[in-house]
């Protein structure tokens, strides 16, 4: 039998059916690039930038956690290394962030190789604990190495130099638009990288390691090497997101770019969206960012009052106005528990269960 016959075991689908998703993706990307031309609201752009950053960190984690099965709960380390490298170069050495960000991802890659070769000796829960410990080491170091990192005071960027692209000079760094585009490009890049990893030898090897390490080892897979490759890819993109975040917000300190919360948040994006899938982290970011924003700004209470469910003057209404925004982490946590209990494979898994059932009927 010829190779052609082997590689096409299924009947060819109609041209329309194979082309339609590709066209939809191209249109979606074009629309995303056009958004800043039509959307004036800085708040909307701000939300989009946050979503992009979350997509980048979620997808990066997904390569290591979702595909390779190594649950790192210490990804804030790479985010922080990226953010601190960019910010320190910018503020103390006047090196522009579009150069600093590459230095940041290179630094994260080196950190990843060192951490990986130590921590990948451990398996399962022991690896998880080690990853948390490593991230804490970075946080405590940043906090106490005052003459290098400014410690708890953090680093505030006072000036970003002008950027010249094709004759245009960008100086307005208070505008959200440049950050929107950078976020979009990085987000598309990591989704593209995930896609091509999944289709390549790496993807097969990563998933084999996730499914059964000993079996993978016996099939000629060098466990330490491939785990380190997964961590390396993951760390580089997480650091890019960290650098972007630092430059965008203009201020970082150990409690914003290196806390354990951040590591957990990164894992949550994937768990909520759907672990080990390309679109899972995208869906996770699209759900989690608006959700935490709604809870933090107490929009929930406003909506309930507007809808007439709660009387603004009643004790319950007053209580909610006063305290609900402070309880946003609590509500967030409860929602996460509900999702994990009832959608163990994330939103994507939950939805696909219905669509496949219908297709089967």
């Amino acid at each position, binding site marked *: 039998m010829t190779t052609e016959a*082997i590689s096409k075991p299924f009947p060819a689908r109609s041209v329309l059916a194979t082309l339609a998703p590709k066209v939809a993706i191209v249109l979606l990307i074009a629309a995303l690039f056009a958004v800043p031309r039509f959307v004036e609201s800085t708040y909307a752009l701000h939300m989009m930038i946050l979503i992009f950053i979350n997509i980048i960190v979620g997808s990066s984690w997904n390569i290591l956690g979702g595909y390779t099965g190594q649950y790192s709960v210490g990804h804030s380390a790479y985010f922080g290394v990226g953010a601190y490298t960019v910010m320190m170069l910018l503020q103390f050495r006047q090196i522009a962030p579009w150069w600093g960000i590459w230095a940041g991802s290179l630094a994260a890659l080196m950190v990843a190789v060192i951490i990986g070769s130590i921590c990948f000796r451990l398996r399962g829960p022991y690896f998880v604990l080690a990853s948390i410990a490593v991230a804490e080491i970075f946080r405590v170091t940043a906090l106490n190495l005052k003459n290098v990192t400014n410690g708890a005071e953090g680093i505030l960027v006072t000036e970003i130099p002008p950027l010249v692209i094709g004759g245009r000079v960008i100086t307005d760094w208070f505008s959200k638009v440049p950050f929107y585009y950078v976020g979009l490009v990085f987000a598309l890049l990591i989704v593209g990288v995930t896609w091509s990893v999944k289709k390549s030898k790496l993807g097969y090897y990563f998933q084999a390691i996730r499914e*059964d390490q*000993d*079996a*993978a*080892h016996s099939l000629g897979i*060098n466990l330490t090497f491939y785990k380190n490759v997964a961590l390396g890819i993951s760390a580089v993109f997480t650091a890019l997101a960290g650098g972007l975040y630092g430059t965008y917000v203009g201020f970082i300190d150990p409690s914003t770019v290196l806390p354990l919360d951040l590591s957990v948040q990164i894992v949550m994006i994937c768990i909520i969206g759907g672990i080990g899938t390309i679109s899972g982290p995208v869906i996770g970011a699209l759900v989690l960012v608006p959700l935490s924003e709604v809870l933090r700004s107490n929009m929930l209470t406003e909506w309930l009052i507007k809808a007439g469910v709660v009387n603004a003057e009643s004790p319950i209404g007053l209580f909610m106005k006063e305290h609900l925004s402070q309880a946003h982490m609590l509500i967030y946590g409860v929602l996460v528990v509900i999702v994990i209990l009832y959608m163990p494979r994330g939103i994507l898994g939950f939805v696909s269960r219905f669509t496949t059932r219908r297709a089967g009927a």
Partner: protein
Amino acid sequence: MAILEIRHVSKFFGGLAANSDVSFDVPEGRIMGLIGPNGAGKTTLFNCMTGYYPPSRGEVIFDGRRMNGLKPDRVCKLGMARTWQKVRPLTNLPVLDNVMVGALCRTSSIRRARAMAHEQLRVVRLDHKASLLAGALPIGERKRLEVARVLATQPKLLLFDEVMGGLNPAESEEIIQLILEIRRTGVTQVVIEHDMKSIMRLSDRIVVLSSGEKLAEGSPREIVENPEVIEAYLGAEQ
């Protein structure tokens, strides 16, 4: 010519000798049966051969090369591959991808690996289930999947750790035919098995382990007539 030489291999876990001073040669292209009561050290010996444990003493020589201290992935690349007593399918991956992972040991091209995987799936007659998840297969087919996956790594020497364990007679017969087919392609095989009838039919030579030591070695006929082997299996006559 011996493709595999086990030379005075011992393996201690604390004070317990799981293998002690085991030596034998496996001639190229043949099927070597490895039998012995539970706890005789058969699987430990496989683990010592494939790099999961370093032998405490002695040497494993494969294809003229000393294997001590090599990691399992290197052992596989050099052409010695094993299956597992308790099957280890990559449960959440399709059957085809399971075999492709094996094939990717020899190629980096996904296209070629897919073609090689289909070929091996046809050998074990699982090609019609290529797109199912491996976790959805019943035990008999999981065992055949494991054979296909290990064949896809293109081994010179195959180690089968109870591939017939837990199978019904019809399923066992399929595996026996498969092992005989593999023999015809010139691949050397070492087979651990509990079912005496099967092992007698398959093996060119048999090594008997008992309490970690080599008790006997010979042709299947010599082994069944060996009084020491009978004693180890059935107990001494009163």
